[in-house]
């Protein structure tokens, strides 16, 4: 089959699966997960086939697989939809297909397939005692729809279909965060996530419209061609100091800020952990949040239009780099103080996405793409691992009737012996996250970003990212130590058990990638290791851009810094937390003092937004929209229209309908009735009477005829 056709087909099985499950397979748990996993498997197969065929093409960046059809004729132009497989999308397809498949399989185990349904469980709440999820089929329908959105986004060749996939994912995110909708917190989180990302999306849509009006097309290849970019970079926009390209880039970047949870729109992601863990893994770590980074990578040429390597950053890049670097550092500090195992990972995700965004901002295209891929693997792994841990602890809590919060790391500990597979895979993911030198994927990708930041001379970016890396290593060590090492700090943790194979196998697969994915991108001039494997990644992904970006040259400073912070952070984290005992407060509380409280409350961003945005919005909605606009103006207009119509109607009734129309109608009836009554006496029923009458008439007629016409 042609790769273009396979690319077209790749997103389709999940949407088909969504409809099949929703329409037909809703009642059968086994059937619904078979359809969902089967469809994902087909998509995965197609994605892999496309990926490997793409690998075989030389200079894929110049000769990508493309195919498009006219979709919507709108006025003078036609909107096209199509597919495009260039190195960036091939690579994204690769990691999306793998992580989605892993998560689909994992979900089967996570939702306790194979156990009977517990009578006490109600739809909308997580199963209490290891029974099968009451809304099992619904879950698989939603994640199928989600996978469709992500695959559509990745294979699309234009901004329109990208946006469609983007919004489908927004919807699925909403539905899945609120999957356990009977929980108040889940309902709040779903609304928060949806509205927060919508803020970004509005800006993105503006950028999209701006782009369309300036270029007349939404197709990547048409926009990201040299003449168009030069024109966009040359024309000034409405805001002084920004070219049109920069302005559009900035607007699109706001979409990324929402979707990839960058400061200041990061608040939704941690709350999104209310959803089931596979959802956290899939949406809020591996795929959906990657979509934001994917998009700015896609529009890297637009953002950097007019900029050449070695020059000062243009304003758009500066904003992106600043937001990314700040987010990376800011989220990492919050992650230090969280006790919920999933929230640590959520902040870590925000922080790592900040890395990628910062990398894009300083022009490190390949490094950002590289980190995107490795992060998707190790963060999916970590999330699934944490889900496995929670599952195990819940199991223990149920077995011992120990009522604890199964997400709280403070009550865990010692799980390495209870859950060895989860432990080792989690360690692999954790080391990758903290950038454990030489072995793990995270090291190579993070190192490349740091190297680039150092090389481009952006000391502040470099500094922030190094500090973030140190904190990352520290909180990772904290997490692993608190969760797996030491002695169990509760009965629940003591009785935790390893998860089922459908959960552990995806962990092992992802662990392989979390470690191995980095070896494809080792810089050529890295001492000893460089050159053992060709720097395939740089050559492949770099080809996406029109002019191949320069490779980062090996520089001892960033590499040694990176190694030092990773190892140092891990060591310090382990030292601080290894003596943790049950009930003791976090060792960081004392030295940090009030700062700890501030950080633990996430710098009071939620409170700030509640105060500055949510309350005014409520007030505005209540006072202005509801009272004044709705009740006053709109209802007033409606009521007066109603009253006027009523008056008009009653006038017409009294003046026209009753006297004229009714009157004439009645008159016909009355007249006939009266004349009938008048003539009634003639009808005697006697033959001879009739004859006499007839004779009289005949006589009258006769005499008339004779008299008038003699």
């Amino acid at each position, binding site marked *: 089959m042609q790769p273009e056709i396979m690319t077209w087909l790749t997103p389709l099985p999940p949407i088909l699966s969504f409809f099949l499950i929703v329409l037909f397979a809703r009642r059968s748990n086994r059937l619904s997960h078979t359809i969902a996993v089967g469809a994902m498997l087909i998509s995965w197969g197609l994605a892999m086939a496309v990926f490997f065929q793409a690998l075989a093409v030389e200079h894929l960046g110049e000769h990508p697989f493309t195919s498009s059809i006219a979709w919507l004729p709108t006025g003078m132009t036609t909107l096209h939809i199509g597919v495009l497989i260039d190195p960036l999308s091939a690579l994204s397809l690769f990691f999306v297909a793998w992580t989605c498949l892993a998560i689909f399989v994992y979900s089967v185990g996570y939702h306790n397939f194979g156990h009977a349904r517990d009578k006490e469980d109600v739809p909308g709440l997580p199963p209490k005692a290891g029974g099968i999820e009451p809304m099992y089929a619904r879950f698989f329908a939603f994640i199928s729809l989600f996978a469709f959105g992500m695959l559509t986004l990745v294979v699309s060749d234009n901004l329109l279909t990208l946006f469609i996939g983007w919004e489908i994912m927004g919807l699925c995110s909403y539905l899945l965060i609120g999957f356990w909708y009977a929980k108040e917190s889940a309902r709040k989180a779903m609304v928060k996530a949806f509205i927060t990302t919508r803020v970004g999306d509005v800006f993105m849509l503006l950028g999209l419209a701006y782009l369309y009006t300036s270029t007349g097309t939404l197709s990547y290849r048409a926009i990201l061609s040299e003449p168009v970019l030069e024109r966009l970079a040359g024309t000034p926009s409405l805001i002084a100091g920004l070219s049109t390209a920069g302005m559009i880039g900035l607007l699109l970047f706001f979409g990324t800020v929402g979707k990839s949870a960058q400061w200041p729109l990061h608040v939704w992601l941690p709350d999104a952990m209310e959803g089931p863990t596979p959802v956290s893994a899939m949406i809020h770590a591996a795929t959906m949040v990657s979509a934001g980074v994917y998009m700015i990578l896609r529009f890297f040429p637009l953002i950097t239009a007019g900029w050449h390597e070695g020059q000062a950053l243009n304003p758009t890049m500066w904003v992106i780099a600043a937001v990314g670097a700040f987010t990376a550092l800011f989220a990492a500090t919050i992650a230090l103080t969280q006790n919920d195992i999933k929230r640590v990972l959520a902040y870590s995700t925000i922080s790592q996405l900040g890395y990628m965004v910062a990398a894009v901002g300083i022009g490190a295209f390949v490094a950002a793409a590289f980190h995107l891929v490795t992060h998707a693997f190790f963060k999916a792994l970590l999330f699934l691992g944490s889900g496995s841990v929670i599952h195990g602890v819940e199991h223990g809590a149920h077995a011992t009737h120990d009522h604890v919060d199964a997400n709280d790391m403070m009550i865990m500990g010692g799980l390495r012996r209870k859950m060895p597979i989860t432990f080792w895979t989690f360690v692999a993911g954790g080391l990758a996250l903290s950038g454990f030198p030489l072995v793990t994927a995270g090291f190579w990708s993070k190192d490349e970003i740091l190297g680039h930041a150092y090389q481009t001379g952006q000391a502040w970016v470099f500094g922030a990212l190094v500090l973030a890396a140190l904190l990352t290593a520290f909180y990772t060590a904290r997490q692993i130590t608190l969760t797996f090492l030491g002695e169990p700090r509760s009965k629940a943790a003591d009785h935790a058990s390893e998860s089922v194979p459908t959960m552990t196998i995806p962990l092992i697969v992802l662990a392989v990638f979390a470690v191995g994915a980095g070896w494809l991108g080792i810089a050529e001039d890295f001492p000893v290791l460089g050159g053992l494997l060709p720097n395939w990644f740089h050559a492949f992904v770099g080809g996406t851009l029109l002019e191949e970006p320069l490779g980062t040259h090996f520089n001892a400073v960033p590499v040694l810094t990176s190694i030092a912070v990773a190892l140092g952070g891990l060591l310090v984290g382990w030292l601080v937390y290894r003596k943790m005992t049950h009930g003791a407060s976090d060792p960081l509380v004392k030295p940090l003092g009030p700062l700890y409280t501030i950080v633990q409350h996430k710098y009071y961003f939620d409170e700030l937004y509640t105060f500055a945005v949510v309350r005014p919005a409520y007030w505005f909605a209540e006072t202005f929209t509801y009272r004044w606009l709705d009740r006053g103006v709109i209802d007033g207009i409606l009521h007066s229209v109603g009253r006027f119509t009523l008056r008009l109607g009653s006038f017409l009734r009294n003046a026209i309908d009753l006297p004229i129309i009714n009157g004439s109608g009645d008159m016909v009836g009355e007249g006939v009735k009266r004349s009938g009554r008048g003539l*009634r006496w003639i*009808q*005697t*029923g*006697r*033959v*001879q009477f009739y*004859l*006499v009458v007839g*004779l009289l008439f005949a006589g009258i007629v006769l005499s008339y005829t004779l008299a008038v016409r003699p």
Partner: protein
Amino acid sequence: MIPLSWYLVFAAALFCIGLYGALARRNSVAIIMGIELMLNAVNINLVAFWRYLSPAFIAGQAFAIIVFAVAASEAAVGLALIISIYRRRSTVVAEDIDMLRW
């Protein structure tokens, strides 16, 4: 030859007798008989006009024959009705037969 006016006078007399019978008699059969008389008075007129005014056309004869046929069928139907009414209501008095009243 007998003048036409004699025939007409005779026919008129016959018609008046028939009319009087039809209007004045109480017996339905007698009413029918009166009607027959009136019809035949017309017949006499028709034939007389034909013979005296336009002997070349047979329209008068044809009319008279048609009137015969109608009179015969009318008598047949009328008598049958009267018999039927008599069977039901044991009367042939026209005044009592007022079922057609409103």
